[in-house]
C-alpha cells in the first residue's frame, strides 16, 4: 500500500466523487484541488465555476484564491459575480464543493463565528458564496478534516444550510437545492439518512475503524449496515495529485 497523508487521502476521495461532464463550484484549497485532480484522472470535461466570474478555466498552477485573474485564465466566459451565483439558483450547478469550520449532524455549516454572533469567541471570515452554494447547488459535497471540535451536534451559527433541523425541514423552508449528499473526511465518508437526514457513516478509509470515526465525531454517529471500506489511493493518483501542489501548500502532512 502506498504511503499518503490525510490531506492527500481526503482530496483523492473528494476527487473520486466527481463525475465527468459535471458543472461544479469549488472553493479554494482542498475542494479545488479535488476538482483539478479529477480533471486529470477521470473527468477531463468537468467544468469548474468560480464566483468571481470564471467558467471552465484552464488551471495549470494552483491559485491562492479562486477569485483572482490566475484562477480564471483561459475561461470560456467571464460573467459578472451575480450571474455566476444565479446559475446556482437556476439549477445549472451539479455539485457544490464546500469546507467549513463546523459541520453538524444535519450537514449545516458554520463559517461565521464560534460562540454567538452578538458575543463571538472567534469571528470567522463569513459565508462568501458558501450559503448560496449550500442553498441552491443540485448537490453538495463537504470536505473536511475529521475532528471532534469540527463535527458538532449543532453548529453555533448556520451560515450554510444543510438539512437544518433534519427531516423535511429543508424542503419546508422553501429551499430547492438538493442539500448535502456526502461528507468526505480523512477518516471516511458520511451520507444522510433519507428520513431523519442525520449524518451516517457509510464508508471508512483503509485502516480506519468505525470506532475511531465515532470517537472523533462530536455527536452520536450512526453507522450504515453495509459499511464499506474505500479503495486506497493508487500510485497514479498520488503522483498526479502531488504534481499539482509541489510546494505542499495544501497537502501538508498534519491537519488541514
Amino acid at each position, binding site marked *: 500500500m502506498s504511503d499518503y497523508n490525510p490531506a492527500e487521502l481526503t482530496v483523492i476521495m473528494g476527487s473520486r466523487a466527481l463525475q465527468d461532464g459535471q458543472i461544479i463550484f469549488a472553493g*479554494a*484549497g482542498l475542494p479545488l484541488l479535488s476538482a483539478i485532480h479529477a480533471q486529470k484522472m477521470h473527468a477531463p470535461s468537468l467544468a469548474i465555476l468560480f*464566483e*468571481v*466570474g*470564471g467558467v471552465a478555466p484552464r488551471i495549470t498552477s494552483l491559485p*491562492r*484564491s479562486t*477569485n*483572482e*485573474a*490566475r484562477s*480564471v*485564465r483561459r475561461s470560456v466566459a*467571464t*460573467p*459578472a*459575480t*451575480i450571474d455566476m*451565483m*444565479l446559475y*446556482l*439558483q437556476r439549477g445549472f450547478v451539479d455539485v457544490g464543493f464546500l469546507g467549513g469550520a463546523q459541520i453538524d449532524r444535519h450537514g449545516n455549516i458554520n463559517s*461565521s463565528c464560534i460562540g454567538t*454572533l*452578538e*458575543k*463571538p469567541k*472567534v*469571528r*470567522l*471570515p*463569513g*459565508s*462568501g*458564496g*458558501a*450559503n*448560496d452554494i449550500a*442553498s*441552491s447547488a443540485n448537490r453538495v459535497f463537504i470536505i473536511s478534516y475529521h475532528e471532534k471540535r469540527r463535527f458538532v451536534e449543532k453548529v453555533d*451559527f*448556520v*451560515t*450554510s*444550510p444543510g438539512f*437544518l433541523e433534519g427531516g423535511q*425541514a*429543508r424542503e419546508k*423552508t*422553501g*429551499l*430547492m*437545492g438538493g442539500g448535502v449528499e456526502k461528507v468526505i473526511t480523512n477518516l471516511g465518508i458520511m451520507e444522510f439518512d433519507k428520513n431523519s437526514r442525520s449524518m451516517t457513516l457509510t464508508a471508512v478509509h483503509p485502516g480506519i475503524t468505525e470506532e475511531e470515526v465515532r470517537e472523533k465525531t462530536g455527536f452520536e454517529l450512526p453507522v450504515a449496515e453495509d459499511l464499506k471500506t474505500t479503495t486506497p489511493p493508487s500510485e497514479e493518483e498520488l503522483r498526479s495529485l502531488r504534481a499539482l501542489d509541489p510546494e505542499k*501548500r495544501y497537502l501538508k502532512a498534519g491537519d488541514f
Partner: protein
Amino acid sequence: MDYRKARQEIVEKNKGIRDKRTTLEEAVSMINDKDHVAVGGLQYTRTPMGVLWEIIRQKKQDITFYKPLMSFEGDWLFVSGAMGKAVTSWFSGGVTWGVSKIMRTFAERDPSTFEEWSLLGLSLRFKAGAMGIPCIPTKTMLGSDLEKIRGLKRFTCPYSGEEMLLIPAVNPDVAIIHSQIADKYGNAQIFGPPCLDIETAKAASKVILTTEQIVDNEHIRDAPNSTNIPFFCVDAVVELPFGCYPHECYGRYEPAYEKLGEYGQGLLKAEDKIGFVQEYLDKYFYQPADFPEYLDLFGVRSLVEATRRGRIWPL
C-alpha cells in the same frame, strides 16, 4: 438610501456627455464622512486601491463600505477610522494568509462593524438597486441564520405559491470602480470578470471611476460591446496606472504577492496588531506625496514583475 431619494438623485444629476477627468484628490472630495460607499472588484482583484488610498489620506471617517469579498484593504480602512462598518460576504486577508486579525479585533469588540450577507444576497441588493426596484425575491439564505440576523422578510409568490426571501435594494452614495480603459466621458471597459461593478455603478448616486488608461472616445466606439459602464452613470474619471496595486488588475498585472505576503506575515507575527497596521498606514498611505511616490515604495522590480506575470495579450 431611501428608494425615492435614490431615484431622485439620478434624475437630478447632470448625466450628459461631458469631460469628467479630474484629479484623485478632487474625485475623492465627492465622498463624505458616514457615506455608504460600494467598492468595485472582489477580494484582491481590480480593487480601486487608489481611491481607498486617497480616502484614508483625506481622513474620511465612519464610512460604510460594501464589497463582495474584503481583503487586506479592510484592515487598512478599519484601523484608519475610514470604515465604520463593513458590509460584505467574507472578510479575511486571503485563504493562505489566514483570518484577518484586524477584522477579528474590530468585529469581536463590536459585531455590528461586520455586516455579513451571502455573496448572492449582497449581489442581489446591488442588482435591485441597479434595476430601480426596492427589493427582489430569492431562495438564497432561506432557513439559515443569515436570514435571521439580517431580519429578512419572507414572501409568497402570488403566481406560483413559492416561498421566497425578499432582499432589500441598496443604493450607495458613491461607487468606486477601476477599469482597464475608459474615455474622458466615463465610458468604461472592464476586461476579465466585471465582478459586481456594473450593478454598483447603476445602483449608486455617484460613481468615481479610476482607469489604467484613458483612451479616445473613437476607440470605445470601435468596440461598443466591451463597454460595461456607460458615461451617464459616471461622475468623475481619473487616469491612474497601477491603480489597484498591490492588488491586481486583470490582464495588466497580477498582485504583488510578495508584498501582500510581507504584510500578511508581518501582521501574523506582530504583537501589537493595530500598531503594526498604523505603521503600515504611515509608510504607505500618509507619507507619500502622491500616488506615484506610493508605487515607488513597492519598487520598479515589483511592478515590472507583476506586469510580466499578469499581462494577457492583447489587453
